[in-house]
């Protein structure tokens, strides 16, 4: 723990601040002018069908002014040499708040997740009105689940995987291909009746999607076992792209870029959500609403996400989970203790991939349509960002990060109020990624090890003490 010596140091004579601060701000402003000049100062416009340049000196002046005065203000206040350094030692206010409310966070979040559809319906005054919020909840929970799945590989085992979307795709296509397969449909039609496969396909394919994705995880894991760090990341990235390109180009099998449509929808354990006499609404005596299916899907993904969390928490306390974390800490020491690093790495890949497969299967049944466009590198990057932002290895951090990232991205779509400031031709959605990027940089500066940077020990003798993130390694292979 760093000991602050500021209190014991003699009070230094006030150092002149205004001059240097002004000079520093001027330099920053000149750099900003140089950078923003070409970027903001010029605008390409079409003049009489030809490309021309327009000039925006006022906007440029505003931007440079923000940099200059912002820097000056910081120099005079936060960064001033006369400012007394913080003499506070020990946990920060935030950490203390964390330990105070910490035990209540998980049950509270869980209760909120379970009650979310009800809250949405009551606050918005109706099933149909709440559709947007519940859809958003489904999206967030899908990413929570994907984050928890990838957390096993990246957070626990320390294997940097940039191609996680491949397993998501394998799960989605497993369901899409099996559920729309005519021979399988005919086979079950002969055995149990014509609608059997359409009604039960999801529940039968869900475990299969997980198994297929897990097997793919192992297949992809084998060649990359000997790679570490950056090299591992590049090869997993390549695998993610390979899967997508195969899906695009193997037209006979996957229908190529056109994708697979009219995939059977989810059923309430065999009871379809339709307006017919055998439908969910009729059997439960409710007026028919398409929202029943959406709310049910919400609870399906919630259950899947909770299953992921439960299995991960359990596995962490088992020898295999401890071996994953030990592998992240020191692979050579693992081998000296008789741990087979090959099977340990493969089990981490396979387990993480399995949950990706479950999530993919859910994605296919929710959308009713899959195409390779849904499985680009962006998705991998987003999931990895969620894991890193949440704090590697932390369940609750990843869940919060997923909610913040996906929810925040959606919020940024609704920046309508900004048009009142910047005028009607201002399109706020264009700035979505910029604001998102700023937010990520800010959080990483503020909390470099993620939102939850401490590690929870898996076993204790007398007292459970969180391990500081400084001691926990990120893994390198």
């Amino acid at each position, binding site marked *: 723990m760093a000991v602050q010596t500021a209190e014991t140091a003699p009070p230094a004579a006030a150092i002149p601040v205004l001059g240097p601060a002004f000079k520093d701000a001027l330099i920053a402003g000149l750099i900003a002018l140089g950078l923003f000049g070409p970027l903001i100062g010029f605008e390409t416009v079409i003049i009489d069908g030809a490309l021309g340049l327009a000039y925006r000196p006022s906007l440029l002046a505003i931007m440079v002014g923000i940099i200059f005065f912002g820097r000056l203000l910081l120099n005079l206040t936060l960064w001033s040499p006369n400012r007394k350094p913080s003499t506070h030692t020990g946990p920060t206010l935030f950490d203390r708040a964390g330990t105070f409310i910490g035990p209540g966070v998980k049950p509270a979040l869980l209760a909120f997740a379970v009650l979310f559809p009800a809250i949405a319906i009551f606050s918005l005054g109706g099933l149909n009105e709440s559709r947007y919020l519940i859809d958003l909840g489904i999206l967030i929970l899908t990413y929570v689940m994907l984050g928890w799945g990838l957390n096993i590989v990246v957070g626990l085992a320390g294997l940097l995987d940039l191609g996680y979307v491949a397993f998501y795709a394998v799960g989605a296509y497993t369901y899409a291909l099996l559920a729309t397969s005519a021979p399988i449909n005919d086979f079950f039609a002969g055995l149990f009746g014509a609608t059997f496969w359409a009604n039960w396909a999801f529940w039968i394919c869900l475990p299969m999607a997980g198994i297929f994705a897990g097997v793919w995880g192992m297949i992809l894991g084998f060649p990359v076992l000997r790679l570490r760090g950056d090299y591992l990341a590049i090869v997993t990235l390549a695998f993610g792209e390979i899967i997508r390109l195969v899906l695009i180009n193997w037209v006979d099998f996957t229908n190529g870029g056109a994708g697979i449509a009219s995939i059977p929808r989810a059923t309430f354990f065999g009871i379809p959500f339709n307006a017919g006499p055998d439908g969910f609404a009729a059997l439960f005596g409710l007026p028919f609403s398409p929202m029943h299916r959406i709310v049910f899907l919400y609870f399906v993904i919630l259950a899947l996400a909770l299953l992921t969390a439960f*299995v991960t928490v*359990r*596995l962490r*306390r*088992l*020898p*295999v989970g*401890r*071996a994953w*974390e*030990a592998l*992240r*800490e*020191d692979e*050579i*020491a*693992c*081998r*000296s*203790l*008789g*741990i*087979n*690093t090959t099977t340990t790495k493969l089990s981490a890949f396979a387990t993480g991939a399995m949950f990706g497969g479950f999530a993919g299967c859910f994605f296919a049944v929710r959308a009713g349509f899959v195409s390779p466009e849904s499985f680009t590198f962006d998705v991998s990057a987003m999931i990895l960002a969620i894991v890193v932002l949440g704090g590697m290895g932390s369940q609750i951090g990843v869940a919060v990060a997923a909610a913040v990232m996906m929810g925040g991205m959606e919020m940024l779509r609704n920046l309508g109020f900004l048009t009142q400031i910047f005028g009607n031709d201002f399109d706020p959605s264009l700035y979505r990624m910029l604001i998102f990027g700023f937010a990520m940089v800010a959080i990483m500066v503020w909390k470099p090890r993620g939102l939850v940077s401490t*590690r929870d*020990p*898996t*076993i*204790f*003798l*007398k*007292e*459970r*003490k969180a*391990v*500081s993130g400084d*001691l*926990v*390694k990120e893994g390198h292979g």
Partner: protein
Amino acid sequence: MATSPANGLPRWEADPILIVEHLFMRFGGLIAVNDLSFKVGRGDITALIGPNGAGKTTVFNCITGFYKPSEGRLILAHGRAPTPGEIAEVTRIGERSLVGRDAGVFLLERMPDYLVSGGAKVARTFQNIRLFTGMTVLENLMVAQHNALMAASGYSLKGLFGLPGWTKAQKAATAKAEYWLDKVGLTDRADDPAGDLPYGAQRRLEIARAMCSEPILLCLDEPAAGLNPRESLELNTLLRAIRAEHGTSILLIEHDMSVVMEISDHVVVLDYGTKISDGTPQAVKNDPRVIAAYLGVDEDAVEEVEAELHLDTNPTGAGA
């Protein structure tokens, strides 16, 4: 200690636990270990010493499977000393090991590192401590019992559902970890991260962790490096206790001669990858080749030593 009462042979000859035969390790053109043969006695504390760069750690890495030797045979004997017939048999059939009811022969050069530890029961520590710094002291000791616990957890299936068999195994493993924590005096720090321990405690924890994997041969790479005299003394006591209470044979690399001469039954001296001396600490201490290798004496001193040596046999040969 070192001599067997039966036939007057030193124990490493009568009942070896590890036989190193004609070990070579080449890295490109560099020969790090050159035709090294020695034996480690069962229940002995054997020290492998030599000047810096003599190839000691390379020998360790070969024994523990981290390097595949260029040539040579490394025989580990469980139970009793193997007969030449048994060794010839396991070598001929091309297997990694031949395990009978009362004895087992393992050819370490054929095994990957995790099997040397998990199967042949050879544990090791490292010259630069390799603890799982982000895990607690107790967790470090639990990871060391991975293979036993993995089987008890039904390869995670039983453990996932918390079946009683697994819970019991976990309790037993924790008890064993507590035993070793007590042994190395770290019970109070059990729930602290291993990276927070002071250096000497980290060294002791690494030994405890190795012992939690229940080895029959414990290989320690410079266990006393960086310890103060009091800690060195504690280490001697600990190693003696390990040998006395668990019957674990110990092979150690050490530069601290107070440790080596104090506790070892048998010393093997390496220089430039070859063995220059092998015997009891007393015999080795007085071996002029060892003195020359260690002190790096100049020409005159070598002549003096030689003169002294040859005084009895060849009185006129001094300085010739």
